[in-house]
């Protein structure tokens, strides 16, 4: 967001001594006082939008090419190794063999990926959403926090693989156990971060709200909720990949749908290229989700230090 007016923003930045009349190159405080800071450049409305889009693309290209280069190199080495050593496909397929497997039946992989994505997202909404709601309650009462925290911790420390079969017994072979497993695995990171985030409010701002007789709901909506967002996003960065893991583990155990089922079948068939194909699909979903999350985070947290470009 600062990129909108970098020139003025830099001038007004809270550098020590910025408001003291001093060296010629710094605007003096008297100028700021009557609001007549010298504007060096003012972007036009349309130009501003276009400028931002171009900046985004540039930033994307700049951030994108190093990992792309590494990927290309790694794939080349991998391919060369398999060909030179003549490693059989069922032990380790070459990248081209994996690509062939994916291209042979793309709907199979895409369909399974879509189902797993749905399971992961459903679980995330259930788990992280529920955790945030519970966190909001716990953030308002230390007594409730103390009462509930041990049970939240129990969910956390129980290996999900240990209770997944139980969940399948309880919920059967539908979508439900997938949502529940993905939900359970995303629950704890969000709970801890939500409680911390909702409590970490600026004391001076909170005093102002109280002096204005703000209701709890106003404090929650206008102060606590926005203030918690950096923590919520930190939790999501952990929870989103976890949700995918949870969903696939549940699918793998019941072997009836999604990428988890794909893995079970490919494994049974010694179809190692398809096994790798499943991994590629999962990796692609994971990267897309994480990337999308980062975009949303940058948009929503423009005001926070964590996304500031130094």
């Amino acid at each position, binding site marked *: *967001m*600062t990129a909108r*007016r970098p020139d*003025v*923003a830099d001038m*007004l*930045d*809270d550098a020590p*001594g*910025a*408001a*003291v*009349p001093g060296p010629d190159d710094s605007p003096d*405080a*008297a100028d*700021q*006082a*009557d*609001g*007549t*800071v010298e504007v060096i450049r003012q972007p036009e409305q349309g130009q501003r939008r276009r400028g931002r889009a171009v900046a985004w693309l540039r930033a994307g290209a700049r951030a994108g090419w190093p990992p792309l280069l590494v990927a290309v190199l790694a794939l080349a080495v991998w391919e060369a190794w398999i060909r030179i050593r003549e490693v059989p496909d069922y032990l380790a397929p070459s990248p081209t063999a994996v690509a062939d497997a994916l291209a042979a039946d793309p709907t199979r992989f895409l369909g399974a990926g879509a189902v797993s994505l749905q399971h992961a997202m459903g679980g995330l909404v259930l788990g992280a959403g529920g955790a945030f709601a519970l966190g909001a309650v716990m953030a308002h009462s230390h007594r409730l926090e103390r009462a509930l925290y041990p049970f939240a911790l129990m969910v956390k420390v129980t290996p999900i693989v240990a209770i997944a079969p139980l969940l399948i017994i309880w919920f059967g072979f539908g979508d439900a156990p997938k949502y529940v497993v993905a939900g359970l695995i995303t629950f704890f990171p969000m709970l801890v971060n939500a409680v911390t985030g909702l409590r970490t409010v*600026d*004391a*001076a*701002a*909170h*005093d*102002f*709200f*109280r*002096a*204005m*007789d*703000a209701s709890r709901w*106003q404090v929650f909506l*206008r*102060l606590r909720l*926005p203030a918690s967002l950096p923590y919520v996003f930190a939790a999501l960065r952990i929870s989103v990949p976890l949700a995918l893991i949870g969903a696939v583990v549940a699918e793998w155990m019941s072997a009836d749908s999604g990428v988890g089922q794909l893995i079970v079948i490919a494994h049974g068939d010694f179809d190692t290229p398809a096994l790798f194909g499943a991994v590629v699909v999962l990796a692609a979903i994971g990267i897309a989700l994480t990337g999308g999350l980062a975009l949303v985070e940058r948009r929503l947290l*423009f*005001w*926070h230090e964590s996304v500031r470009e130094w």
Partner: protein
Amino acid sequence: MHTSREGGRTDGRMTTSTIPQVPSTTAAVAVEGVSHEYETHDGVLLRALDGIDLSVRDGEFVSIVGPSGCGKTTLLRIVAGLIEPATGRARVLGGEPEAARAERAFGLVAQEPGLLPWRTVAGNVALSFELAGRRADPAEVSTLLGHAGIERFADYFPRELSGGMRQRVALARALAHGPRVLLMDEPFGALDEFSREELRLELLRLWERERPSVLFVTHAIREAVLLSDRVVVLSRRPGRVVADVPIDLRRPRDAGVEDTPAFLDHVARVRDALREAGG
């Protein structure tokens, strides 16, 4: 109503005295026998305030000065109803602080501006209207920003502003809903000297518009004298009122007043009181 202050004595013959207590029903703020203590992390019980009596008349500007740790901030928070005193009570506009809060009678400015970093300058000022339960009219907000000299920065975010500008926003936000009692806790304490000078005069200018009653906590003697009708001096912990110095300087005041003998005389008087108090 305020003409009585005009042409006040400047001959330096006033004595340090306690202003006669105004009945609490007519005072904007009345602090009656307030004592307070708090417990430190290692279980020591410290007395912060000891039998404070204090009143601010309607439209009066009263400063509280005292050595650091004398409980100035605690006193202000008690007046705002943010904490309950151990003994005694605070009355605001003739009622409980909570009632005054419910009427949105308070404007609060602390040392930290406490702005919402995700809201623009205009958005931060609009917050006062929202919390008071009405829609913020953009024209109204922009008029307020104009009064505070920050109209130009309406669409900026707090982090894009200097410390002095942020405090101007905090001031505009505190005054937005037309509070009758302005509570200020070392509002310029974290600023550089230049911004501080400027904001003092800005505050005077803004205060003259509506003349709310002000309780102003500071440790800067000159600041207290420049701004106030009365300076209340607190002693070292536990805070007790040791002097109540009326400031009979002509209003409206500007920077020039600081060079007059009468001003320096008042400063000396407050300083002496502080010295006696062990500050």
